[in-house]
């Protein structure tokens, strides 16, 4: 067949972040010309559901799979089978263990993200204080990596920040809301909630707004500007950060296409990712796309129109 069929598999459909990524992927497909994009994923963010999706992609003999995984290990056997059948496999956003993919595209550098999320809170806490993390699923690879990195950076760079708890909202708005309430109830001196997930950050900001704690508790983390604008506006949050998911989807398609076209994924290799620039693989065949971008009152209006 003449068209290159690339499947963009996301953690779950309907998530604004991934919809934005899909938009970028479409752009890339249009730019490359001979690419047919299949945008798919489960509705509930589970590994089993993703495996079924991968199985059907294998049966359809697509040329490449670019996946943001719900579990780094559970998908390995299925993806290995895909590779055995000649399908190119890359992971992006949330990675798969190295043996289950040919390369991984990090949205940004793990350590950089870890530092950024703490810095977002610390910047508005000159005298320091208690902060807590509201994460996504306890199994989410990328969130866990960022939290590890954040914990590592606290003692030396932010000694007066006291991380009191890490809780998990499973990227479910209800669970996230409950966990945020729990944090506020359990830690009366809490000064900031850091939610490195677009679902959790909205839930936490809504709770802070509902409980009239604006000004006392600052919500921060990783947020989609379009979903989060109102909370910057009402002061529940001072600033959040995120990379550009459109660029992420765009880059993933470029990388997948490059592999299909015969480029080798090996440590040190450099790939062009169209208008975004280029990336270089490290010794685990991972690459980082760009530094996270910070949104605050000064620029949220503008970006909320884009994604």
């Amino acid at each position, binding site marked *: 067949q003449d068209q290159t069929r690339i499947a963009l598999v996301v953690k779950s459909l309907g998530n604004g972040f991934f919809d934005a990524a899909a938009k970028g992927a479409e752009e890339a497909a249009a730019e490359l010309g001979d690419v047919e994009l299949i945008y798919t994923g489960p*509705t509930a963010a589970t590994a089993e559901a993703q495996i079924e999706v991968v199985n059907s992609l294998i049966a359809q003999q697509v040329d490449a799979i670019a996946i943001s995984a719900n579990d780094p290990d559970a998908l390995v056997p299925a993806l290995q089978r895909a590779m055995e059948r000649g399908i190119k496999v890359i992971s992006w956003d949330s990675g798969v263990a190295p043996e289950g993919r040919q390369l991984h595209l990090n949205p940004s550098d793990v350590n950089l993200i870890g530092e950024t999320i703490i810095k977002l809170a610390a910047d508005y806490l000159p005298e320091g204080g208690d902060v807590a993390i509201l994460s996504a699923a306890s199994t989410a690879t990328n969130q866990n990596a960022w939290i590890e990195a954040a914990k590592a950076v606290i003692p030396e760079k932010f000694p007066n920040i006291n991380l009191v708890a890490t809780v998990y909202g499973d990227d479910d708005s209800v669970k996230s809301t409950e966990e945020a309430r729990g944090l506020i*109830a359990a830690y009366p001196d809490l000064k900031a909630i850091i939610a490195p997930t677009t*679902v959790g950050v*909205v*839930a936490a900001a809504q709770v802070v707004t509902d409980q009239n704690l604006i000004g006392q508790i600052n919500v921060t983390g990783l947020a989609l500007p*379009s*979903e989060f604008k109102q909370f910057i506006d009402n002061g529940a949050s001072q600033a959040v950060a995120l990379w550009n998911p459109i660029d992420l989807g765009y880059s993933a398609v470029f990388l997948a296409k490059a592999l299909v076209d015969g480029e080798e994924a090996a440590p040190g290799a450099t790939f062009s990712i169209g208008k975004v620039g280029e990336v270089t693989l490290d010794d685990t065949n991972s690459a980082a796309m760009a530094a996270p971008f910070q949104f605050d009152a000064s620029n949220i209006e503008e970006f*909320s129109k884009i994604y």
Partner: protein
Amino acid sequence: MTRLFRNREIWLALAIIAVIVLVTWRFSRFSQPSNLLTILNDTSILMMLALGQMVVILTRSIDLSMASNLALTGMIVAMVNAAFPMIPIPFLIAGCIIVGGALGAFNGILVWKLDIPPIVVTLGTLTIFRGLVFVISGGAWVNAAQMSPDFIQLQRGSLIGLPILTWFAIVVAALFFVLMTRTPMGRSFYAIGVNPTASVYTGINVGRTKFLAFVISGAVSGLCGYLWISRYVIASVEVASGYELTIIAACVIGGVSIAGGIGTVAGALLGALFLGVVNNALPVIGVSPFWQMAISGAAILIAVVLNARGETRKGRIILKKAEVAA
């Protein structure tokens, strides 16, 4: 007095108070009125859903589709609000009740006219309704930014010191109380649960009564669809996914017999409140979130064992001696 203590609602209320006292003992802030009111508010939606489910369970049926109904109605109302923000909220609420009721009526018709077991019907509509959420929304979420301020703020307002959401629960509970104790329809739910064949002899149309029970549970789900979406300000496919079991758990803890015919409004409310208090207490006393699930599972089992103890039918007693002792 002994009769009072045979009453399972009393025991449940005592259990709830015990949990509150225990937690307060370590964290005095827990029993502050404001926190207790917050818990009540947090539990309001579950209370209403439990009441709807109770009516269905009383008739020896079960409605597994309530959470999906809630998600579907919620998505519809969110999309309508996003598209036509000028429609007044009371109209939207009425619309939710009608849509939810219609979805419930679909379950009810299958149970009534085709005589398919309710668990099968609602197992099917559980997946169908949720699938429809995806179909109508195309998988996209409706988020806070797209909803009108009124839509979000209505339930957050307060009236005589209580949030509007709590008032919704209070009004719904009062309506259910009148329905279940003072109307022929309410009594017929009990009757067909206790003895369906005998109900026919008293002129009750068993199928139609079940149908009505499903319409009621559907209407409640619909109402809660709006309340849920405006509370958590996000409408997505996964809204309240798996919540049907929590609703049933609340009923069971509240002493609603899964075999039908037994259950009270107070019981269902307390059952929901019990889950609300426990869920609220865990993070406060610093129990790792990973313990939460196991603890609520154990709570359900303990409640069921205790309820069953109370329910061991003290059939009739023949021996005079034993009668005196009892």
